[in-house]
């Protein structure tokens, strides 16, 4: 089975607006989902730039799909939906 790819944006905007807290997912996800999910912290995904002032960082990309105003709960919910 193909792994679910999760990228946490660690660009400055996302980090300051809360992706700093999402780093806990890097430890949490292997415990919860084993090797079904591949999660990494990633350089700026460019979402804030493309969405401008009305963007809602922090962003997380799950299999290419963008989750805005990401929280730990939101990311886990998205992953569960995909599994």
């Amino acid at each position, binding site marked *: 089975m193909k792994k679910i790819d999760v990228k946490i944006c*660690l*660009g*400055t*905007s996302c*980090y*300051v*607006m*809360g992706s*700093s*807290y999402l*780093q*806990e997912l890097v430890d949490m996800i292997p415990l919860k989902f084993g090797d079904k999910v591949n999660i990494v912290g990633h*350089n*700026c995904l460019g979402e804030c*730039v493309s969405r401008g002032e009305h963007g809602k960082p922090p962003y997380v990309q799950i299999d290419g799909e963008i989750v805005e105003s990401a*929280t*730990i*709960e939101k990311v886990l919910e998205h992953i569960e939906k995909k599994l």
Partner: protein
Amino acid sequence: MSVKQFIQLKKEVLIRIIRAFLSGDFANNARLIPFEMRPKGTEVSYRCCIYKERAVLRDRVIAGLGFSIEDDDEITELAQYANRALERKKPHFQPLTIIDIACKGCAATRVFVTDICQGCVARMCMQSCKFNAITFAAGKSVIDAKKCKNCKMCISACPYGAIAQIRVPCEDSCPVDAIEKNENGIARIDYERCISCGKCIINCPFGAVHEKSQIVDVLKNLENKSKGVKIIAMTAPSIAGQFPGDIYQLKSAIIKAGFTDVYEVAMGADITIKNEAAEFDERMKEGVPFMTTSCCAGYNGFIKKHLPDIKKYVSDTKTPLYYTAQKVKSLYPSAITVFIGPCVAKKNEAFYNDNIDYVINYEELGALFIAKNIEVLDCEKSEYGVESSKQGRGFGVTSGVAKAVSFLAKTQSDPVLINGLNKQTINVLKQALREGKCAQGNIVEVMCCENGCVGGNAVICSAKTAQNALNKLLEKSKDIKKEN
């Protein structure tokens, strides 16, 4: 743990203030912030209506511009505040302010019987109450607020868990009872008692307590850089992990944001460690039973206002920021110095120290990076003029200071950690003072915030993330030199 919504709002306000400043039309764009954040027809996120949302945002902007909301007359426009901020020579002395219209006016702390009460036959609650405050009416227990002493015995006695305590988070979090309520239950800060620890800022679920920001003062000076003014950033040891990348990339990012140079406050911590270890040895030789550390601004405020008698047991050594600012001003006498840290209490320390011109926190630095589109991870690594020691860099986490002093002290040290000032830990200090000894050890490290500075009121990441980043940095850092 996720970041609290009101903290996001505060950051967004700061980003918009900085963008307004950089736009060239500061006054007008500052005036528009509440309208841009809540344009016509937008969903009402938190309050009763869009007008209240904007009114609260207006107050957040006032605090972000560095003014007291308590002094606001509601007539002065944000544009006028923005102009006043530009004209201001010195930041306000009291660093905290409360948005009264954001304050919920939480009911005074009391114990209360909820609808879950089954009106049982056992009546354990009545039996447990030593003050005869509980009666039975209309099939349920009722607490007489006049007789109730909030002892909470009934809460543990009720087999249904039907009795609850209504809490007032700002009051509960304040270690020194500095929050008072007016007749409508709206919180006010008693500045005579307040030690500016900032615990109420993070604990009020309505985000009603604000720091008065000095960001506009700093922005003004960054603009003057072209006129030859040097503006030097001094970053607290707790900064590791607060931003993406490492502290060397962060240095480049801060310079890119407009500062002339960056010094680690850990550099001053190295001097603190040497002086404090020597002082500890001397005091122990003289037979003094214990010594407490003196680097935490919240603790220093606490000593001054609430426990002055303990002063004889407190180290006379100055804080890491004191030595860092002294060094920077000796190198660049005309420079403007800006401390960047997680802590509002440092604003008080800065107020009494002419070598420290301004204080901004990690949220404000983050907002500056965002407004100026600075990607920390894209920045080159830049070395510091002085490379600080492993022990100095460890000052921002609980046990770091005690470990550092113990590392250099020649006397056998037995550290006691006060990991966060609260009513219990304050009693430990009071007891040590009363008895003239500290049963638990001889070097008492006092951190006002839980986990140390990494648990400060304006941090970007969790204490765990900060600790992990710090550990990585410490692996590469060298031990402080021991003198013979």
